[in-house]
């Protein structure tokens, strides 16, 4: 009861902070603000850089350091204070965070479109399981290997993508995703339509059996990959990606090698998806080709867009939100109040058998609403809120 009140209080406070910042301030300095967002330079007074070293720092201030430590403590303590189901949810979210972060490199930073990431995901999943079960490689070797295989396919897909954009690129990647699952489903080595069981993971003398043990491995890998992404974006490579997104012809005239960097973006993005796929196989313990559908690719794209393209936080928030919604909406009728109301609504107007399809309606509406009202996603809302309250009385 007490905790419920505290949660409710914090939720209300958050709603208040966000609403004030986004309704009052929105029209005051809209233009300057939008410009800042699109160039992704936060020129707030407090964010001013004083020397070059600050560009390289991972942790920019003691406050950030404090929250970071708190986050890590939370991540470590989390599986011990919640039930098994929530550990599973956390694993599921962490995997989607990895894919979304990888896709964000392609969509948000390099400005390409991919509707075929479920294909790379499938390659990673099948690669890891097969390398472990059939070739007998240890997990820690099989995972990066299958990531590299996925990256190879990403490189191959990146080659035609060099000359394509817009709808052309989207249909090419979409076709790739569909083809991969079809091909995998037809090859007997890959278990065909029956799918494959994931073997147990053994690292040294540590045998991973439960979700909770896997959680620690997964969180470690996720944090590592996110750190890698953050650093990649700040290097020469990352700046080249951003230059290609903003104006590829201009970037070329400035000496950015477009062929190299575009294929690299595809490869790195596919690598992330492959690693995530490899881990996904061990969360579900079982993989079959039917899982890696076009809908999955669409959901990955939705995570990036809903969270906010071109930021590191965006995919994390987007993946968290959409996965949580996904798992919640699977048993939509169990939600208190709303479930009963939906049940009567379905009885009288719709059909009760199709009630689980409400999740499509919800996801679709979220995607449309985000694109219409806040193209920078939830991260844009956060930036606006932060900006408003930092300079609050003014």
């Amino acid at each position: 009861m007490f905790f419920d009140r505290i949660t409710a209080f914090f939720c209300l406070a958050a709603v208040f902070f966000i609403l004030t910042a986004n309704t009052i301030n929105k029209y005051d300095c809209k233009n300057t603000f939008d410009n800042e967002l699109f160039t992704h330079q936060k020129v707030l007074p407090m964010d001013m850089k004083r020397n070059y070293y600050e560009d390289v720092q991972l942790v920019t201030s003691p406050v950030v350091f404090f929250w970071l430590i708190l986050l890590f403590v939370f991540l470590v303590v989390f599986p011990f204070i919640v039930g098994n189901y929530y550990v599973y949810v956390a694993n599921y979210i962490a995997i989607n965070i990895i894919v979304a972060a990888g896709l964000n490199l392609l969509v948000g930073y390099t400005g390409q479109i991919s509707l075929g990431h479920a294909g790379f995901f499938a390659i990673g999943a099948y690669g890891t399981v097969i390398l472990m079960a059939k070739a007998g490689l240890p997990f820690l070797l099989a995972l990066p290997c299958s990531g590299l295989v996925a990256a190879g396919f990403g490189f191959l897909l990146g080659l035609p993508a060099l000359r394509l954009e817009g709808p052309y690129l989207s249909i090419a990647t979409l076709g790739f995703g569909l083809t991969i699952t079809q091909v995998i489903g037809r090859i007997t080595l890959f278990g065909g339509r029956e799918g494959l069981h994931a073997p147990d993971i053994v690292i040294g003398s540590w045998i991973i059996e439960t979700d909770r043990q896997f959680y620690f491995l997964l969180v470690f890998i996720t944090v590592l990959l996110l750190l890698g992404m953050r650093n990649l974006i700040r290097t020469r490579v990352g700046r080249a990606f951003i230059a290609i997104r903003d104006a590829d012809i201009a970037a070329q005239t400035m000496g950015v090698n477009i062929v190299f960097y575009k294929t690299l973006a595809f490869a790195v993005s596919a690598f992330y998806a492959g690693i995530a796929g490899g881990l996904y196989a061990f969360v579900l313990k079982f993989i079959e080709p039917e899982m890696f559908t076009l809908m999955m690719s669409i959901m990955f794209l939705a995570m990036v867009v809903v969270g906010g393209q071109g930021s590191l936080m965006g995919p994390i928030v987007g993946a968290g939100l959409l996965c949580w919604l996904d798992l919640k909406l699977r048993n939509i009728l169990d939600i208190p109040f709303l479930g009963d109301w939906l049940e009567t609504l379905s009885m009288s107007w719709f059909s009760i058998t199709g009630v689980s399809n409400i999740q499509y309606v919800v996801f679709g509406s979220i995607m449309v609403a985000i694109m219409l009202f806040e193209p920078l996603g939830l991260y844009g809302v956060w930036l606006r809120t932060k900006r408003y309250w930092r300079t609050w009385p003014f």
Partner: protein
Amino acid sequence: MVDFIQMVVSGVAVGSSYALMGLAMVIIYKTSEVPNFAQGEMALVTSFVTMMLLTTFGYPVWLAFCLAFVFAAALGAFLEFAVLRRAKNPNILGTIVITIGLEMVLLGLVSWKFGAEQKTMPFPIGPYDSFIIGDIFIAKLEALTLVSALVLMALLFFFFRYSRLGLAMKATQQNPTAAKIVGIRTNRIMMMTWGISSVVGATAGLLISPVIMHPFMMWDPMLKGFAAAVMGGMTSLPGAVVAAYMLGIIENLFGGYVSIEFKSVVAFAIIVLVLCFKPSGLFARHYVKKV
């Protein structure tokens, strides 16, 4: 030889439905540069509404079909008015995400309302009615699809070439600002474009629905139609049609002679190959990017 001709004939029939979907997408892309992923689901909604009119309300077939086309036009116009127009200068990714979102909403609503199982459409021509020319079987439905596709293509061709509205649409596509200056209501043109395109798509949907009718029935024709539109160059109506027939025929021949298992994905392999060599499609004039 008979097998070959039979395969080509059914390829042409399949290609007709791809061609209709491709045309619908090209019409919208031509005017507003939106690759409309919701096209299939717009047709899906229309087909299910028609089924409801026929079964639940018991309307006669001609009335139900007329109402269906009116509904399709209204739906397309409404989506443009309510959603696409509200987007603030969306980039290509933005429009893709919006139309995919619309697709999911429509798909969700239809499958919520009707459930996921197979339905039967009380269509005047059954899916297995056929006639024989020489040794070739032709389903009446396939023939009807082909005829309606050809008629619609001709109509659209003349519409874009000679009618005032069609010319205004062309003008809007080429330069919206200039079109506005000479007095074309570009917003209204967009709405009409979506309406027309939705009607073309709905024709495909109605002709597919006697054979398969469940909420995911339009995914394959929509994706293949989109593939054909892209292969034809995304802005060329004849290009989309030719590419759609090519895809339909190649797909069927591939299924017959090489491997039935990969039949459904060979179209994508082809378009990836085509795009490798002709990045702006087979029939588009060379795509020049504005810097």
